[in-house]
């Protein structure tokens, strides 16, 4: 069973969506390590190291995700987690912006998969299966 780390980054306390992600991923055969809300980049990284996670799924709903995710990939590399897939999703930028542009910005920051508002977790599961298997 593959392990994934999920959580809500930054000063964001949106707990409900995170619980849904936890539930759906677990139902679909992943070992989910949920670090909860108000999580720092270091929390995600430490959790991924100890649990040997294959992917980190970062959620953000309050609009400041772009700031919170800055240099996340670099820190992962520093911590020896270059092989770990990075996903980000939610309401990840300020205001309404073109998702294509947002996606390219986050990809430049090192994220492998980027989801804007309205995307279902099921879509991410398909990508997870592609990227890390089951």
């Amino acid at each position: 069973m593959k392990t994934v780390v999920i959580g809500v980054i930054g000063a964001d306390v949106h707990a409900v969506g995170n619980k849904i992600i936890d539930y759906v991923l677990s139902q679909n055969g992943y070992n989910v390590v949920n670090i909860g809300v108000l999580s720092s980049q270091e929390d995600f990284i430490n959790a991924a190291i100890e649990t040997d996670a294959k992917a980190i799924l970062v959620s953000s709903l309050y609009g400041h995700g772009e700031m919170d995710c800055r240099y996340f990939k670099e820190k992962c590399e520093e911590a020896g987690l270059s092989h770990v897939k990075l996903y980000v999703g939610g309401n990840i930028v300020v205001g309404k912006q073109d998702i294509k542009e947002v996606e390219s910005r986050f990809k430049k920051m090192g994220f492998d998969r980027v989801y804007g508002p309205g995307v279902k977790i099921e879509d991410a599961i398909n990508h997870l299966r592609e990227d890390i298997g089951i």
Partner: protein
Amino acid sequence: MKPYLLVDFGSTYTKLVCVDLDGEYIIGTSKAPTTVETNVLDGYNEALKLLLRDHQDIKSISGISACSSAAGGLKMAAIGLVEELTVEAAKRACLGAGAIVKKVFSYHMTKREAQELKDADIDIILLAGGTNGGNRECIIHNAKKLVEVGVDVPVIIAGNKDAIDEIEEIFENTNIEFHIVQNVMPQLKKLDVTEAKHIIRKIFIEKIIEAKGIKRAEEQIGEIIMPTPEAVLQAAELLSKGFEEIEGYGELMVIDIGGATTDVHTIGEGFPKRTEVILKGLEEPFAKRTVEGDLGMRFSANALLSLVSDYEFKKYFEEDDNCDHNITKSLDRRAKQIGFIPITKDEEEFDSAIAKICTDVSISRHVGHVEVVHTPLGDMYYQTGKDLTGIRYVIGTGGVLINSKDPKKILQQVNKKSNKLLELRPSKPSILIDKSYILAAMGLLSQKYPKVALKLMKQYLL
């Protein structure tokens, strides 16, 4: 009358407490210098002689239990993966078992680190790393390193279950004694130290006692059942929880200021008390012990000046203290003369100031703290560690508090309003003193006679 004897082989003194199990009172106490270098029984016999001289009504002893912190106590090394996670979990397992954590290693051990560990004066090594199903590679690497340098003390393996088979193979064909127990952190941030603590105690009883020359005592007094700090922790837990119909004191804290270290024990969940506070970090043990190796009255006195400046030190003197203390010199004197006993008023005042610093700093490190996070939904708080604001009793023990004229004044540092406002210190605790020096003894007694031990603590802690 049914006298029961409780023995504590301490680092400096062998202390005896004699309890009447029938009458449920303390018949008497005595002490004599610990004699590990020659024959540990000499010190014990000396103390026993004093006890029997003062209490001639003791005709026979119905049973004996003993604990020990002699010859430097139980010294351990903790190895894990991430510092905040399995390393911390491993440390807590050691501390909870009454050990002093002398060496700590994280991530992949280097040859140098492994050699450093081998050369260090350590009694037991605890090897952790990875949650169950998590990282296997690091703990396997570290196990190999331990075998490569050929460590000569028992190794307890308490890490990722998935790596156990391989680790077992690594150790199997060596002379290293190894024990495999449950992972100290089976899931992320979940702490499970019960099995690790159990095996630490078992090794302590079977092996360490012998290595430290205390085994000889067993011929006369039976098994030495635990390290002294664990006895204190057990006493605190019993006093907190109560037993059968006798009510306990609820959440409480014990501070033990010694010559070399200051130990703080708290019994309580310490969960956040408000809804806008979110708990962070590794799960906290219900009975938590921290040990500060740089806070002590004698051995470690010189370390104090690296913690507080001269100027800050002076703030710990009483207002009516007019003596112009030479802080550096007075500390150095105490560090050099371990057996120093204050005689003049100025010397007493100085000791009292050291004790206040030990209390203040050790509490600051032991309690949890909160940090504010400004979120679009308003201010939220992270809590790391235990919220101990609701602690009802703070119990002081250790020579300096017991011999002090005003021990409660020293312990008032516990709820000192400091500039570190976000520390979750006890806010309105009642302060009790272990005047008769019985806490460790009651922890021992509680193994067989919890009810008597509880009654006596309620009676003798004032």
